[in-house]
C-alpha cells in the first residue's frame, strides 16, 4: 500500500528537468553555470584548445543540440561554419534563429573593428566586427544581464533563482572588474605582437597596443616572409612580448620571440586554456598575472 502511494506521488509530481544549455564556447558555458548553478546542465561545444573557426558539426554536437533547451553562442559569424548546421540538423524547434532558445552574445555588445568593406582578399574578416568579445569584462557584464533574462524567460520556474544568482554574480564581477582595472593599470601603453586578432578586446580594455599579428592576414598561417618583415618592424619599434592564445600553434611565436629577444606569453584565451583559468574570474586573474609578469 505504501509503495503504491509512493509510486502515485512520483507520478503526480510534475517532472522538472534541469535546463539543458549548449554553449558554443567555454566562456559562455562558464557564464551559464554561474547564473544557473546546479539547476542547469551545461556543456560547451568547443574547448579552450580548439579554434572555434574550424569546428565541424560532428555527431556529438548534433545530439547535444537536439537535446538543448538553450544554445548560447557568440554570433557575429564566429560559428558560421557549424552552428547553423547544428540548428538545422537537430530537429529541435527551440534553438532555431529567432527563437528564445537561441542566444547570441554579440547581439548585446558593441563590436570593435567593424570593417568598412568585406572582401575575402583581406582574409577571414567577420563582417559584423571582431567577434572575440569575451575578453573585456564590461562585455561579460552586458551579456550576463541579457542571459539572466533569457534563462528566466525559458525556465520560468527557476527564474527567481537565476535572477538572484545572476545578481550575486554581477556584484562580484563588478567588484572584480574594478580590481582588475586597478591591477592592470601598469600595462597601459605596452606594445605587443599577437598571433591572431583574437585578443583585441583584452588589449583595448587594458589600453595596450597591438603592434602587429603573426598572421599576414586574418586566418592565413604565419609565413617566413611576413615574420621577417615583422622582425624588421620590431627593430624600429620594439614590442614587449609576443602574445598568443593557448589554442594558437606555438612555433611561429617562438620563432619571432627568439629573434626579437622578447618573451612569448601564452594566455588562456578562455576558460580551460590554462590550469589556472578554471572559471571566468580566474580566466581574467590568470591573463592579467601573465601579462603583469612582463613588467617584472
Amino acid at each position: 500500500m505504501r509503495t503504491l502511494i509512493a509510486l502515485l506521488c512520483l507520478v503526480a509530481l510534475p517532472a522538472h528537468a534541469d535546463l539543458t544549455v549548449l554553449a558554443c564556447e567555454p566562456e559562455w558555458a562558464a557564464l551559464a553555470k554561474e547564473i544557473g548553478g546546479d539547476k542547469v546542465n551545461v556543456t560547451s561545444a568547443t574547448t579552450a584548445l580548439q579554434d572555434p573557426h574550424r569546428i565541424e558539426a560532428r555527431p556529438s554536437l548534433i545530439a547535444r543540440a537536439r537535446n538543448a533547451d538553450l544554445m548560447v553562442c557568440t554570433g557575429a559569424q564566429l560559428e558560421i561554419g557549424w552552428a547553423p548546421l547544428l540548428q538545422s540538423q537537430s530537429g529541435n524547434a527551440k534553438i532555431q534563429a529567432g527563437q528564445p532558445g537561441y542566444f547570441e552574445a554579440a547581439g548585446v555588445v558593441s563590436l570593435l573593428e567593424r570593417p568598412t568593406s568585406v572582401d575575402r582578399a583581406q582574409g577571414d574578416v567577420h563582417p559584423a566586427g571582431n567577434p572575440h568579445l569575451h575578453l573585456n569584462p564590461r562585455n561579460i557584464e552586458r551579456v550576463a544581464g541579457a542571459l539572466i533574462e533569457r534563462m528566466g524567460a525559458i525556465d520560468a520556474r527557476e527564474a527567481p533563482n537565476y535572477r538572484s544568482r545572476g545578481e550575486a554574480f554581477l556584484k562580484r564581477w563588478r567588484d572584480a572588474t574594478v580590481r582588475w582595472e586597478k591591477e592592470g593599470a601598469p600595462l597601459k601603453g605596452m606594445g605587443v605582437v599577437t598571433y591572431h586578432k583574437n585578443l583585441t578586446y583584452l588589449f583595448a580594455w587594458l589600453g595596450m597596443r597591438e603592434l602587429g599579428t603573426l598572421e599576414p592576414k586574418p586566418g592565413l598561417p604565419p609565413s617566413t616572409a611576413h615574420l621577417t618583415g615583422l622582425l624588421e618592424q620590431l627593430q624600429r619599434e620594439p614590442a614587449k612580448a609576443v602574445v598568443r592564445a593557448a589554442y594558437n600553434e606555438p612555433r611561429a611565436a617562438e620563432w619571432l620571440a627568439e629573434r626579437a629577444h622578447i618573451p612569448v606569453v601564452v594566455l588562456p584565451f578562455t576558460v580551460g586554456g590554462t590550469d589556472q583559468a578554471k572559471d571566468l574570474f580566474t580566466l581574467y586573474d590568470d591573463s592579467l598575472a601573465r601579462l603583469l609578469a612582463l613588467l617584472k
Partner: protein
Amino acid sequence: MPSSANSGGEVAPAPRGFSLGESELVISSNIDPYFRGQLVASFTPDNQLEVEEAFFQTLALGRGFTLKGGRFLSSVGYQNQIHQHAWDFQDAPLAYKAFLGGRLNDDGLQLKWLAPTELLVELGAEVGRGRNFPGSDANRNGAGLWALYGHVGGDLGESTAWRSGLSYLRASASDRGFDDHDAGGNPVTGAFSGRSALWIADAIVKWAPRGDATVTNLKLQGEYFRRSESGDLTLNSRPADYTSRQSGWYAQMVYQFMPRWRVGYRYDRLGYGSVSAGSFTSADASILLTAHNPTRGSLMMDWSPTEFSRVRVQLARDNSRAGVTDNQVLVQYIFSLGAHGAHTF
C-alpha cells in the same frame, strides 16, 4: 562489371586535356520561422543546367523530427550527402558509380528523427519518385523508390569523432535503359525492369589532436554496398529473366600533415558476384555479363591556402574495365565564392 553500363550517366572519368568541371550555385536560407530552403543548381560544362537539390526543410516540428521535401541528396550511406566540391577525390568511388549512378538525389520526402540520447541516433525514411538510377522515371502514382537508414555517432575522448550507419534502399525500375556492346563490338541497347534492393554500411572516423584540426588531422572512411536485382532484361528487344547479387566497397584515408596540405589514398573494389540473364552470355553483352571485379587505387595530394580554395593532384590506377589498366593523372582546382559554406562532418 556490376552494371556500371547499366547505371545512367556521369560514371566515366574526367575527359582528357583541359576541361571545366561542374559549377555549382547554392542558395540556402531560412524561408520563414517554419521552413528552411536550399537550391543547388549545377552548370555542366556542356551548357546544361541541372537541379541537383531544391528542397524545403522544417525547422519547427521539434522533438527531434525534421521533414525534408523536394529534390535532395539522399541520406543513405555517408558520401552521398557530400557535395562534389567537398569531396576528397575528384571522382566518386566506383561503388557510388555502380550502385547509385554517381549519387542519389531523388524527388520525394524524407522524415528523420533524432533520439533524445547523448549518442547521436538518427533514423530516417525516404520515399520518392525513383526517377534516376537505380530506379527509372515512370508514369505512375506512388513511389518508385524508398529508403530507410540509421546513423549512430559520437566522440571518443576529445580528439576523435565517429559516425557509422546502415541503409536500405529499394527501387522499381521500368525499362531502365543502358548501353552495352557484344563480342563483335556492335552496340547493344539494353533495358531492365524489375526490383533493385541495396544495402549500404558506412563508417567514418575523424581524429585531430585535442579536437583542433588546424595543424594536423586524419580522416578514415569506408562504405560497403550489397545489391540484389531481379526482373526482366531485354537486349536489343530479346527478353530474359535477370537476377544479380553484387557487392562493392571502398576505403579511404586522408591525412593533413601540415596546415594547408593533405594527402589521401582510396581503394575501390567491386565484386561481380552472381548474375544470371537467361541464356545470354558475355558474348551478347560484354560489359554486363563479363565476370570481372573492377578495382581502382587513387592517390591524391591537395593544397588549400584557405578553406575557400583548393588545388589537387590525383593519380589513379583504374582497373574498372575488364582487361584494361587505365593510368590517370589529374590536376584540379576548386574555388568557393560568396557566403561561408557549412562544415559538414
